[in-house]
């Protein structure tokens, strides 16, 4: 689908982004997180619980207060885990840098590249 020129330029941009200090820190923090069995277990448990609770809610079930409390307690444990907190902190530095670089694309196009790359509904956008 992509022309060779587009593919090459996209790759060049990605490689330049990867060299940035914020991205390097994020990649390191992310790898540290993945290598930590406890952090992985916490996140897996949180995701599984989230999926279960939302699915039951969507089926019209009313959740018990205790179940919601358990979810919030697990969320806190997850986000207070040093590896996960480190990764999230690193991610907050990547976002403004990526937004700044994406603005260079947006300036040429006159629309937000990132939003269109993740587009879902034309009726909301027109």
């Amino acid at each position, binding site marked *: 689908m992509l022309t060779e020129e587009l593919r090459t330029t996209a790759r060049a941009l990605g490689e330049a982004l990867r060299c940035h200090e914020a991205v390097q820190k994020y990649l390191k923090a992310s790898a540290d997180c993945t290598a930590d069995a406890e952090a992985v277990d916490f996140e897996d448990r949180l995701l599984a619980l989230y999926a279960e609770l939302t699915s039951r809610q969507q089926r019209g079930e009313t959740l018990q207060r205790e179940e919601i409390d358990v979810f919030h307690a697990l969320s806190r444990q997850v986000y207070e885990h040093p590896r996960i907190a480190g990764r999230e902190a690193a991610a907050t530095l990547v976002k403004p840098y990526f937004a700044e*670089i994406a603005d*260079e694309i947006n300036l040429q196009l006159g629309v937000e*590249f990132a939003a269109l790359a993740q587009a879902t509904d034309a009726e909301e956008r027109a």
Partner: protein
Amino acid sequence: MSTPSAAISPVLPATLQQTAAEAARALGILLFNTPEYQAYRQALHQVNRDADVQRLLASTRERTLALQRGQGDALEQRAALETLRAELRSLPSFCTYRQAEENVAGLFHAVDEAVSRAAGVAFARNARRSGCGCGC
């Protein structure tokens, strides 16, 4: 965005920082000149000039807002929204716009995948400033 961009000023040489900005500008120019993007611009221009499309979009926004604010009967509001959307889909200029947007979104998505693969981090998902693609 909670962190000001000033907090992440790069420690790498300025030339490297320029490389990312320059690559982004080059990518923007390439994307601008693709047939998909030109067709999208043309289709967007047409729907913006189409009074029927604009009227239906305004009503859709009004109904969506009312639904979000819990105004009126939710079932009725949803039914009205469905009718408005069906009317929109029956208009040729809107159909052309939707198709053009789908094409350009597919192209941008593929480009984003290529950028993200090389960066090692999802680019578009982390670069978004708003929930809207029109730059408003």
